[in-house]
Structures are given as structure tokens and as C-alpha cells.
């Protein structure tokens, strides 16, 4: 039995990638959930707004790089992030002013907001492409690895290697910080409580002296921050191509829903659940089993289902989870 190698193989191929991916989904889902809870609709433009924020950040990153500014081992994009957030915040506030505010004043049915967000999605989609094109862009710099496979093998003498990219670590760390900050904000500050109050009962919030438009603005600004951070981390870790940011919308929604839409804890749990089920269920256990039981020669790959079904599989898992927890992973209080 070779537990160490088995463990390393598991960490390297399942745990670390899934954790990073899960954190990316969680950040995205957090934004979706926030808008759902407070502005009362699912924002289909989320993915494309993430792409927009990332595109701006990339442009600024390039500018900084050409000026020779860098963050040492950390990606320069982190420096550019505030600019990206600011630009995205302006964009979403402008969108709100031009599009959503009208329906708010009209008290239009919430589904109308969803459809308006689909319209916004189309526009953002085009806008991002006009801005930066359709091609893949790489903008990560700084140290690529915290632990590189080769170094790890040399250091440990194991057959299996372990890689930890700095972007993966960064993603997880930033996710933790952002979540904690958001929690603190929503549950402890007056503005955060005002947002929750508005989410709970708009009219009564207004009758308590809470300015609804201020709540809406605040929500958009926070959402813009979440979207840009999520987009940039995702782009750093994978690569940036506008189309992928639309594709990621589906898993993000799945994560938000399974966690219980409107619930930030749920969004995070949902993100990790989706990511881990995608990776773990389709993982062929043959190698790990080989280390654990050297005498056993399994015929196949010990894979439950092929990777082509990974998204489907993750959905089945979500449904099974919901069967046992019919109210989503976390019901509790909505935001």
C-alpha cells in the first residue's frame, strides 16, 4: 500500500483543481445570489459582465506592464483590478439607470427584469468583443507555481507529482477573504442590514427611511466588484476568452440554485459542490486504487461515467442532494 502516492495523485488531479474551480464558481454564484436576493432577478448578463470587467482589467494590466510596473511574484492584474472594478461599476450603474430603473419604477413583473438582463447580456457580449476581440488573451505574470511538479517529485521522491499554481492558491485565498468581507458587511453594518431589509420587504424598508435607490446602487457596486474579481481570477487561472464567460454562466447558476438562491453561504457551498462533483465523479480511480491495492489489477479505469457526461453527472448529484435536502443546501435566512 502506497498511501502517500495515492494521496498526492488525488490532491493533484482532484482536490486542488476542483477547489480552485469551486472557488471561481462560488464567487460568481455569490454575485448572482446577491442580485437575486436584493434586486429580485437572476442576472443573465452576469457572465458577460464578468468578461467586460476582466477585459478592462486586462487592458489596464497591459498598460501597467508596459510601464514596467509589477507586483513581483503576484500577477500584475491584481494592481489593475481596482480599475476594472471601477469601470464595471460605472457600466452596471449606467445600465441600471438606463434599463432596470424604468422597470423598477413601473413595478414590472420580475421576469421582465430577467428578460431585460438577457438584452443587456447581448449588448455586453458585443461590447466586450468590440473592446478586446474574440481571441484568447493571457495576462498572467509573476510566479506561475507555488509548487511545481518537478520540484515536488525531487523534494519528496514520490512517483506522483503535485502542482499548485499560484493562481489557484490566489483564487481560494481571495474567495475566502471576499466571502468573509461580504458576510461582515451584510450582517454587521448598517448599510448591509438596509440591503437585507430592502430584500425582505421593499415597502417597509422605505417606510423605515431606507433610500431604495441607494440600496440598489450599493448592490450593483458590490456585484460589480464580485463579478470583476471572479472574472479576473478565472481568467488568470485559465485564460480569457469572452465566449467562455458566457459558458460559465450555467455552472454558476447551478451552483447558486443548489445552494439556495439568495443565500450567500449556499452560493459558496453550491460552487464547491458543482466543482467537486464534476471532477470527482468522473475521475478514474484506477491509479489511486493501484497505489492502495498494488495486487489488484482492475480491468477498466474504475470510472463511474465518462467525462463527456461530467456536467450531466454534476446535475444528477445536485438533484440527489436536493432529494435529501429539498430546500437547498442552505435555506436559513436569505441575504
Amino acid at each position, binding site marked *: 500500500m502506497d498511501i502517500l502516492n495515492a494521496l498526492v495523485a488525488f490532491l493533484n488531479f482532484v482536490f486542488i483543481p476542483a477547489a480552485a474551480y469551486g472557488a471561481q464558481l462560488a464567487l460568481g454564484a455569490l454575485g448572482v445570489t446577491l442580485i437575486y436576493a436584493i434586486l429580485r432577478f437572476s442576472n443573465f448578463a452576469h457572465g458577460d459582465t464578468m468578461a467586460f470587467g476582466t477585459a478592462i482589467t486586462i487592458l489596464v494590466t497591459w498598460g501597467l506592464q508596459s510601464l514596467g510596473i509589477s507586483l513581483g511574484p503576484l500577477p500584475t492584474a491584481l494592481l489593475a483590478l481596482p480599475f476594472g472594478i471601477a469601470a464595471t461599476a460605472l457600466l452596471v450603474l449606467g445600465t441600471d439607470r438606463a434599463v432596470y430603473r424604468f422597470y423598477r419604477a413601473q413595478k414590472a*413583473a420580475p421576469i421582465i427584469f430577467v428578460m431585460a438582463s438577457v438584452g443587456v447580456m447581448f449588448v455586453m457580449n458585443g461590447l466586450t468583443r468590440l473592446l478586446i476581440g474574440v481571441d484568447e488573451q493571457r495576462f498572467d505574470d509573476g510566479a506561475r507555481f507555488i509548487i511545481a511538479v518537478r520540484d515536488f517529485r525531487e523534494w519528496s521522491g514520490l512517483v506522483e507529482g503535485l502542482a499548485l499554481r499560484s493562481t489557484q492558491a490566489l483564487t481560494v485565498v481571495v474567495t475566502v477573504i471576499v466571502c468573509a468581507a461580504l458576510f461582515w458587511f451584510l450582517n454587521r453594518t448598517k448599510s448591509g442590514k438596509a440591503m437585507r431589509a430592502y430584500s425582505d420587504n421593499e415597502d417597509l424598508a422605505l417606510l423605515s427611511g431606507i*433610500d431604495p435607490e441607494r440600496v440598489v446602487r450599493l448592490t450593483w457596486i458590490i456585484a460589480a466588484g464580485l463579478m470583476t474579481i471572479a472574472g479576473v481570477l478565472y481568467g488568470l487561472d485559465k485564460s480569457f476568452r469572452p465566449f467562455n464567460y458566457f459558458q460559465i454562466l450555467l455552472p454558476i447558476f447551478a451552483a447558486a440554485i443548489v445552494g439556495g*438562491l*439568495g443565500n450567500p453561504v449556499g452560493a459558496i457551498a453550491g460552487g464547491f459542490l458543482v466543482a467537486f462533483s464534476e471532477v470527482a465523479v468522473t475521475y478514474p480511480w484506477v491509479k489511486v486504487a493501484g497505489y492502495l491495492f498494488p495486487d489488484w489489477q482492475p480491468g477498466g479505469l474504475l470510472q463511474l461515467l465518462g467525462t463527456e457526461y461530467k456536467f450531466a453527472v454534476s446535475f444528477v448529484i445536485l438533484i440527489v442532494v436536493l432529494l435529501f435536502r429539498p430546500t437547498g443546501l442552505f435555506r436559513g435566512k*436569505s441575504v
Partner: protein
Amino acid sequence: MSDQDAVFGKRGNRDLSVVNPNGRGTIDGTRRSGPVRQGHAGDPFLIGENMTGGYGKGADILHDCTIAVERGQIAVIVGPNGAGKSTAMKAIFGMLNLRKGSVRLDGRDITALNPQDRVKAGMGFVPQVNNIFPSMTVEENLEMGAFIRKDDIRRTMEQVYDLFPAVAAKRRQAAGELSGGQRQQVAVGRALMTQPSVLMLDEPTAGVSPIVMDELFDRIIAIARGGLPVLMVEQNAKQAMMIADKAYVLVQGANAHTGTGHELMQNDEVRRTFLGG
């Protein structure tokens, strides 16, 4: 969570998942206030005068209706269901557009203000329905009542808890999980937290048990005698009339009878037709 979810759980598929209809409002929060004008000399503290108007583009509900309350007094509105009592309260609070008439507070004409600014101007209101934040705890509900206050709110909160011990025991529980009467107590408590300069209550005692109702009326009397004018709609008319300095009977959106509570109690017709014998 909407009201029904507290009891019935999240069942069904209506409008959820992609949109969140819970707690949607009816007031247009984007509307801006118009200018505040000078009031009339000799006005009561709060007066909605000759109000005519209705919801949206629909027919008029209020017809030339006047409601007023003086400093330190309690004014009570009674009337059959659908008479327009709640509508009159909303009109005074700026929640529907008046076609005619004006609302004046403390010597200023506030007809053009939006509800948010009326709150800032010192008005406090407990609506008849949807009057709590269901997913926030009782304590947070009270805090939200004090949203515009900058001073220390702990003392007021203790007073509210003293007034409603049943609610005090549940201060960390989500308000949506309370019983009907308990919610009503939270709603009134929330308004008390505002420390407004005028308090408007729409059926504050609906669904509360007799013992609590008595407490509540006691409290309202104390508040009013402390100088804070109270305007309320009541269906528990007999008790309400007993404590009213001024009473209005509304019928079909118009003033039918006006007088002190005592006077109206004496009036046979009023008693028979509106106060339940």
C-alpha cells in the same frame, strides 16, 4: 421568505428560481420629492385635507376626505371594510397620488414629498399588512425601525421589549416565524423605535389577544399624552372610541361622522352601523 412560507415551507414553483418575488413593493422608490411649501396658519399638527384620489389610474377611492390629528392627541378612523381607511392613511403618507387636496405637517405643506422623505420629516407608519421584515430577526426588525436615528437606540429597544414580553423572548428568531399576533407586536414595536413626531397605525390590534391589546392601548395613550400625536385605524371600535380624542367615521371614501370618541359612542346610529352594537 414571503409570509406564507413561514408556515407552509417553500413549496411550489411560482415565479421563483429565476426571479424573487418575495417582498416586492408597491411604492415607486425612484420617485423624487417635490418642493415643500408653507402650511396654513392654525393647522392641526398633521392634516390631510380634502383628499381625493385612488390607486394608479383607477377610480377615485377617497372623496374629499379630511383627517387631522393634534399634538398630544389620539385620532381614530373607523368605518366599514373597504371604506378607504387604509387608503386615507396611505394618502397621508404619500403612497398614492392625490388628485385633489393637500397634506400638511407641522406647518409645512408636504403634499409633494415622497414617502421616504416623509419618514425623514418625522412620520412613522405601521401598515395594515406586510408590516415586518420576515427573514430578519426580531431584534433586527427593531433596529431597522431606528434606521434614521443616529443616537443610542438600546433604551428604546428595552422599552419595546418591556411592552411586548412575548416578543422579547424571541428576539433572535426570524420575524416571519412568529405567530400572527406576535408579528403585529413586532410591527408596532418597529414603529415605536423610530421615535417619530407623529405615529400612524393601521389596525395595530388586529389579531392580538385581549391582554396584549389592553397593554397596547395603554401604551398608545401614554405615548400620546407624552406629546406624540397618534393617528390610527381601528376595528376594535369600542375600545378605540374610548381612548380617542377625535374620531372619524369614513364611508365610501368620504367623512360620514366626525367628533370626539365619546360623542360618537353616544350616537346610536354610528354605534349600530359601524361599531357593532
